[in-house]
């Protein structure tokens, strides 16, 4: 798998506070990487380091194969667009003027792509309306348009749906999916709104206290969170034999417990197990939510 961003033991310390404490993560090319963590877990700090706003105090990262200590890192950064915390816009300018400013910063030869960008984010009819009069959702979309100015290969969005109304959330979600599918743009989206992330992300990185506690694909997460039957039996080998015969998916947890990913008829199961001299002691239905899974990974304490 090709990775666009790789970090290794990345650290950022502010005096005694460790915002990042040996963070290692890998962002696959073309993915929508959901960067999940509580407030203060280190999500924004990592984004600031990748964007060059701050320097790491230890470890390293590679952006498109270029190490952060390498002078060519600035060239790699040109392939990245970002909206860090809030969109960076001049409030007294119109959407078009903000994009023009960005085009000039990038040294683009003309402004021919501005109309298309405004249309892409649904701001093509804002005319002379100044950004200070925009809604939060409109600002967020303009922030994304600005981040896309140089035909970027990767976008980093820090809490992109914070403060948005349901309509705004849907608009941003659809825009991200569209850009990922049509333009093959890799996304890193930091958020603590897991439900929303689960509608987008193809990969996840769970961060807690400045460290990645788990990285996984959406499929792996789905498997971890799917509905199951937790069975306690006297002999898991016998249970495995019975379930194999029935063609049902399961995971043996230990000598007496197993997870069954189906809804078998309990009476039939008890009968078949009895034939194998195995007793079903207890049986309970389980469904892990994304939130539940996250809490099981990082514990319930606050970072703040």
């Amino acid at each position, binding site marked *: 798998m090709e990775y666009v961003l790789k970090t290794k033991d990345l650290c950022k310390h502010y005096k005694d506070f460790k915002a990042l404490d040996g963070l290692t993560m890998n962002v696959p090319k073309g993915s929508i990487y959901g960067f999940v963590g509580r407030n203060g877990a280190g999500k924004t700090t990592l984004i600031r380091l990748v964007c*060059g*706003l701050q320097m790491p105090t230890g470890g390293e990262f590679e952006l498109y194969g270029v190490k952060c200590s390498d002078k060519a890192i*600035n060239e790699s*950064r040109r392939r*990245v667009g970002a909206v860090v*915390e809030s969109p960076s816009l*001049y409030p007294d300018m119109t959407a078009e003027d903000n994009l023009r400013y960005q085009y000039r*910063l990038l*040294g683009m030869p003309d402004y021919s792509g501005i109309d298309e960008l405004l249309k892409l984010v649904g701001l093509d009819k804002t005319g002379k309306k100044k950004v200070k009069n925009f809604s939060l959702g409109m600002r967020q979309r303009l922030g994304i348009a600005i981040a896309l100015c140089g035909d970027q290969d990767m976008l980093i969005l820090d809490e992109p749906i914070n403060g948005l109304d349901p309509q705004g959330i849907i608009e941003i979600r659809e825009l991200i999916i569209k850009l990922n599918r049509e333009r093959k743009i890799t996304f890193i989206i930091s958020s603590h709104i897991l439900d929303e992330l689960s509608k987008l992300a193809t990969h996840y990185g769970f961060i807690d206290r400045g460290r990645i506690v788990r990285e996984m694909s959406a499929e792996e997460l789905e498997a971890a969170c799917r509905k199951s039957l937790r069975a306690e039996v006297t002999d898991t080998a016998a249970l495995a034999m019975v379930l194999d015969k029935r063609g049902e998916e399961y995971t043996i947890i230990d000598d007496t417990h197993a997870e069954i990913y189906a809804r078998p008829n309990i009476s039939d199961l008890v009968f078949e197990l009895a034939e194998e001299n195995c007793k079903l002691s207890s049986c309970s239905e389980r469904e892990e939510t994304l939130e539940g899974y996250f809490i099981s990974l990082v514990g319930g304490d606050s970072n703040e």
Partner: protein
Amino acid sequence: MNKLMSADIPRIIKSKILYAALLFTVFLGAASVLVVFTETDDKAAIFAVASNDMVMFLSTLFPVFSGGLSIILIAAEFSSGVIRNKFIMGHSRTSILLSWCALYSVTTIITFVVYFATFFLTLIIKGAVLPDDMGTVFTNIGIIFLFTMKFQLFCLLMTCIYPDAKMAVICYLLNNLTMVPLLLMFMNNGDSTLMKFLARILIFGYTAGDYTLLTKPDKPWLTAICIITLSAVYMILANAYFKRKDLK
């Protein structure tokens, strides 16, 4: 750096703050001549008196006014968060700093030109006699411009340390609080070697006493070198500080 300049100069040229500042500059340029006409009718002496008043304004208020304008324009980058876009696009910290330095120069030059244009135009319209030795006048204006630029770079250094529009007020206070003790020092010990040296880097020393734009400057090239050297030190310090600064 060219990309940064080509983006920021149109932004500043369109800024309402710049036009408000220029209006104020026109008012001051005209007022510093018109006030003298209320004191004397001697059209031959008007220039000397007006330029004496003007130098006082140029040394006390103008650097702060011009520096404040630059600080407000640059601080807008921090308050709006647009500074982040420059980093994300891969512009180096040094090139961002140099572009700010160029912007500070642009605002200083614009305000300086507008001020002197108004000053001389008002003199001419009012029929004042201009001096024969315009070379000395322009040398003095050049030196005062360098002093103003040096203060601009001091403001730039301060902006790097504390990037907020409030820094304009801090710089104003720093300038004015140091003015009286410095003036007293130069008036009491102006002949000592140390004071003569300090007069080459501090505008209050350079313009102390009966200085006017007609006063023949002593070794203006040496004064220029001293000012440029100190300006370079401010720039180096600003760069060193900005390179290590964590931005949000």
